[in-house]
């Protein structure tokens, strides 16, 4: 089977997020970058499906040329091909991103045949627009559900399990289909030596994205107001236990 996974490169901030002076972006001068966590799991899911059913798995991203790092990482853990849709500067809005990806998927499918399954992350870690995958699925006329915490393929359908308030729900979508994956569906593997070599050798295919701007436009970023806090130090080491238990008692959780 043929699987496509769409991923996004995001910064990995730690204790706090700092913004650039014009508040248009996160100051990434001292930050590393990673693949958005849900998509890391989408990559792992694709690799497992190909291990079980045979076939090939392509990873695709729309992003700065530096996003080649995330594409090569995906190859190092088992993806077989990589496609970069390079853009300059700021993120594209979700409508534009989806339109560009749709158009590239059509080109890829015209060249090498249809993808049985297209995987996305449930939402990107940074922008969190919750819509790119669904817009692509709709444009391609494929069924899709988001939030997958379990995925299996049998008899021409993809079976999806996800968490809802009332419990677990299951869905069954005929292939070709698309699925949005959530972290927790699996535990992504680490690259092997062989994988690392493959990631160095893989030719990242570049395809110029082209799409019109949509109606959601970022004006500026803003850090939420921080809760002012002073920390009461209850003590040091195990000697602090009575003070902790006094506090638990006071807060009414001891009874």
């Amino acid at each position, binding site marked *: 089977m043929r699987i496509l996974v769409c991923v996004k490169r995001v910064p990995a901030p730690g204790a706090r997020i700092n913004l650039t002076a014009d508040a248009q972006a996160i100051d990434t001068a001292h930050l590393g970058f990673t693949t958005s966590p849900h998509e890391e799991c989408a990559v792992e899911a694709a690799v497992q499906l190909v291990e079980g059913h045979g076939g090939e798995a392509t990873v695709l991203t729309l992003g700065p040329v530096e996003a080649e790092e995330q594409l090569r990482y995906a190859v190092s853990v088992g993806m077989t091909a990589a496609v970069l849709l390079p853009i300059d500067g700021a993120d594209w809005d979700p409508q534009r991103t989806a339109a560009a990806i749709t158009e590239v998927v059509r080109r890829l499918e015209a060249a090498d045949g249809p993808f049985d399954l297209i995987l996305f992350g449930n939402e990107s*870690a940074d922008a969190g627009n919750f819509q790119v995958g669904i817009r692509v699925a709709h444009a391609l006329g494929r069924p899709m559900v988001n939030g997958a915490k379990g995925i299996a393929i049998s008899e021409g359908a993809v079976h999806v399990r996800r968490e809802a308030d009332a419990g*677990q729900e299951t869905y069954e979508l005929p292939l070709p289909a698309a699925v949005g994956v959530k972290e927790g569906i699996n535990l992504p593997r680490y690259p092997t030596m062989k994988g690392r070599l493959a990631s160095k050798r893989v030719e990242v295919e570049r395809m110029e994205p082209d799409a019109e701007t949509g*109606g959601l436009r970022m004006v500026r970023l803003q850090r*939420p107001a921080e809760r002012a806090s002073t*920390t009461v130090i209850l003590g040091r080491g195990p000697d602090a236990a009575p003070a*902790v238990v006094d*506090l638990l008692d006071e807060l009414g959780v001891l009874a």
Partner: protein
Amino acid sequence: MTILVVVEHDRGVLADASREALTAGRHLATTTATPLDALTIGAAADAMVAELGRFGVSTVHQAHHDVLADYGPEAWGAVVAAAVEQLSASVVVAAGTDRGNEVMAWAAARLDVPFAANCTVTTPGEEDEKMAVTRVRWGGSLLEEATLTGAVRLLTMAHHAVDAAPAEEPGRATAVSMTVELDDSVSHSIVRGRVERVAGVTLATAPVVVGGGRGVGSADGFAPLEELAGLLGGVVGCSRAVTNNGWRNHTDQVGQTGTRIAPTVYLACGISGAIQHWVGAMAAKNIVAINIDPEANMVSKAGYAVIGDLHAVVPAIATEIRRRRGT
């Protein structure tokens, strides 16, 4: 012009977050002197008219179709898109839940209109087809001010961004049945089966959460945390460093890509307090950080802290509780 609120429910049970979306929709309707309409999907929701009236809805459009007996993202999205066209709605509001966001994304895709997910503030714009929103990024660690431009604007409200409040002068809503044509393809993604949750304390609802981070050191290292949680009628949570190491299941993860907790007390043991963890923990009413590093972010953000090795501190707390209980 109509402001339409999409009402989320699970087989007839109104989702709490929908009351917040109704409240936000009413504020927009009031400031723009526009009537507030609501859309309920499937016959199971027909009994909600009175409740929606209390929230200031004047007309409830009740979409009916065989396919709508259970939830399906595409089917619901198709109904929202059809309602927008039939009612000439200009603004559509839903709850920023998993379902709310995916339904609105499907509707936006069908209509080819913009959609802003998880807004905290919405302001009707000076210009007709443009509104200003503030929306959540990074699961709440960052906000984005944005403009939403188009003849139809779709948005969801981030959970807890507004407090749900019935209208000051509750009205009486009128129910109108709406027939929708749905193509067969939308039935591909209807819920096929489910396993209902068993009652009991969950990470999201527990009154006490004992969280462990990389500082716990191993899967076995969680045993004292389990014991303490047990003594307090709580549950164990963890950081992503822990799930990535395979020490605990992802269902225990607190944070942006895990569970959001809101206990009375969160004991954060050996957790540094990265922003992605913090957004999942910040709704805790009280936080006690237990960390060897007095400079750790979790220590400076918590209301209380113990500086020390969790491997000594956590068992000492359990021992002290048992001593006081005489057990």
